């Protein structure tokens, strides 16, 4: 009888092509997602060496980082460098015969939203992309992580990666979440508890009742930010919700293949007694709606808290906190809910799915954003956008005063024209609050879609629970 294995162990074992004596493995890759920013040099490398894409049918490309979110982008992109990158992806997809969703296709969107939406992402797979937020796909019980461009080229040429196995870490969220608390609050709270290097060297499996209770959208939000906690990947064991989500999607197995897949997928769980090298447990009922105050995703506090002082920290974090506070223009001791906001951004691979738009619209219904506020919704894909229009959510956003944009990464990393100006303060549903992330000098507070909507209405960071009480 074999020793009990974790979910990560099982997926790993099923993908080892070759193992060297020192433990270095050649790992087979089932799905390779590609976007325009981290792939041009990899395709160029193939051309220079006369190599082909080994498995074009397992390779899926979509432009997302650079694309404008305003109309007309399918015929012309003003920024020359952005246009060249998108055109390069068009050409590379065509030349190498890989699956492609161009800007003109309604299925275009953020690569990590398109993959699951089209049924490319399935349980038990290995999934990589030249993008750190590939961790998102772990919500399906697939081993998914970001890679660099040299590794993109390696996967294109060989459909494998040279890897060493990470350690196993379990993050359990017990019990129920309180009202107003979402998947985003879970994932930020975990990073707040473990730090941005707390997961370094590990693959995290998220489990517990609060995780089981999440929808697939919520689970994707949780796994998406595993990388912000330093982990190579985040995983959630597949269950009925997973299978329900996948069934009928364009690239999901059908008929007899579906039945065979289900048999395999149901074996994808951590065995009783399997060993974890690190365990973190948070109580669901202890998690509050949170916001970030600094320039690292670990700078997380409940919205009811106050801005900390550098002296509240130890070691190198003292200087980092001092720098963060100066950059963010915040004074220790001020209430987080007193922080005034100029801009609200709802979108990204963290929170650009239909459930996120529903949560924000539920808060905004019948309300207006604060006068002078700049607010935008950037749906994660053309299909999310269409669904939101069909459900009447788009109208709620527009009536409230939001801009209703086309799909893409947009202001999450501001490679397209959607950027902050120096000193502009943004409540964002994205994943990184680094200095300059949303534009040079821009100040980012990370939070959930419902919290972002609440801030848009009041003009300052706001405890969404107060607004929920109003609507009841």
């Amino acid at each position, binding site marked *: 009888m074999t020793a009990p294995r974790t979910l990560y162990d099982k997926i790993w074992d099923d993908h080892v092509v070759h193992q060297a004596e020192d433990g270095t493995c050649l790992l087979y890759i089932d799905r390779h997602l590609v976007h325009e920013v981290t792939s041009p040099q990899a395709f160029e490398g193939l051309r220079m060496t006369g190599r082909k894409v080994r498995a074009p049918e397992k390779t899926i490309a979509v432009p997302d980082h650079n694309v404008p979110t305003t109309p007309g982008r399918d015929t012309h992109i003003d920024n020359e460098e952005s246009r060249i990158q998108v055109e390069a992806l068009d050409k590379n997809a065509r030349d190498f015969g890989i699956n492609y969703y161009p800007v003109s296709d309604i299925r275009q969107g953020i690569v990590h939203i398109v993959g699951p939406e089209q049924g490319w992402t399935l349980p038990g*797979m290995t999934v990589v992309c030249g993008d750190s937020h590939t961790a998102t796909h772990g919500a399906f019980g697939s081993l998914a992580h970001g890679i660099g461009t040299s590794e993109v080229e390696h996967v294109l040429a060989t459909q494998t990666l040279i890897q060493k196995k990470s350690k196993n870490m379990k993050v359990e969220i017990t019990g129920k979440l309180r009202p107003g608390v979402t998947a985003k609050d879970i994932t930020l709270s975990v990073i707040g508890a473990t730090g941005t290097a707390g997961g370094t060297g590990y693959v995290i499996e998220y489990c517990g009742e609060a995780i089981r209770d999440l929808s697939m959208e919520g689970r994707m939000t949780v796994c998406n930010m595993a990388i912000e906690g330093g982990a*190579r990947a985040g995983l959630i064991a597949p269950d009925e919700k997973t299978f329900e989500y996948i069934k009928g999607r364009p690239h999901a197995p059908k008929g007899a293949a579906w039945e065979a897949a289900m048999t395999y997928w149901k074996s994808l769980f951590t065995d009783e007694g399997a060993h974890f090298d690190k365990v973190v447990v948070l109580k669901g009922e202890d998690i509050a709606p949170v916001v970030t105050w600094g320039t690292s995703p670990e700078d997380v506090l409940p919205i009811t808290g106050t801005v900390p002082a550098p002296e509240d920290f130890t070691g190198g974090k003292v200087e980092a906190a001092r720098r963060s506070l100066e950059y963010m223009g915040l004074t220790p001791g001020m209430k987080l809910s007193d922080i005034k906001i100029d801009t609200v951004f709802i979108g990204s691979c963290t929170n650009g799915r239909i459930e996120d738009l529903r949560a924000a619209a539920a808060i905004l219904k019948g309300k207006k954003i604060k006068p002078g506020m700049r607010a935008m919704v950037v749906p994660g894909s053309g299909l999310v956008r269409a669904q939101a229009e069909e459900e009447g959510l788009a109208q709620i956003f527009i009536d409230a005063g939001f801009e209703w944009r086309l799909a893409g990464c947009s202001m999450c990393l501001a490679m397209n024209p959607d950027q902050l100006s120096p000193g502009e303060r943004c409540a964002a549903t994205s994943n990184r609050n680094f200095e300059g992330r949303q534009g040079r000098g821009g100040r980012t507070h990370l939070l959930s879609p419902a919290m972002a909507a609440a801030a848009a209405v009041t003009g300052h960071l706001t405890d969404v629970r107060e607004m929920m009480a109003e609507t009841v």
Partner: protein
Amino acid sequence: MDKFTTITGIAAPMPLVNIDTDMIIPKQFLKTIQRSGLGKNLFDEMRYTQDGAEIADFVLNREPYRKAEIIVAGDNFGCGSSREHAPWALLDFGIRCVISTSFADIFFNNCFKNGILPIVLPQEAVAVLMEDAQKGGNARMIVDLEAQTVTTSEGQSFGFEVDPFRKHCLLNGLDDIGLTLEKAASIDTFEARAGLLRPWV
């Protein structure tokens, strides 16, 4: 990829923790379709004002660090995105080695693909090296990959660990795609077997 054997060079001290990839190379420079030319934009927003003037007290704008080949950094260097533009920018500037107590996983991998050696050492050792780097002037640090040692300008040495396969690739400047393609038969066998076990993939 250039071989990495021994460096005797200037080490720049960057004690800040959590230096992220957005700091190393901000996103506006990711629009390139080439690997080269990013060195001038390394640490762009820390290094230049909005108008493009150098910020005098930023370490890489000061002598002798303008010619640094090594960075001694605070914890968790390279956290954030997967952008390989970060090691490309470091390399283009002339950095061949980064020393810290910890690195983000993807950045760490990316370094090895570009002939950069990331070295993990305990806090006490990094503190000694940080102090040595802060001397500036003619102080030179020595990184010897074959011997797996870092030596301060005063001759104090620290041993470090490095994965044997990665060491081999760095010492010989090997392209690992070529090495993997030598295992093409194993990949074929795996695909045939996986095709039977998981035909829906």
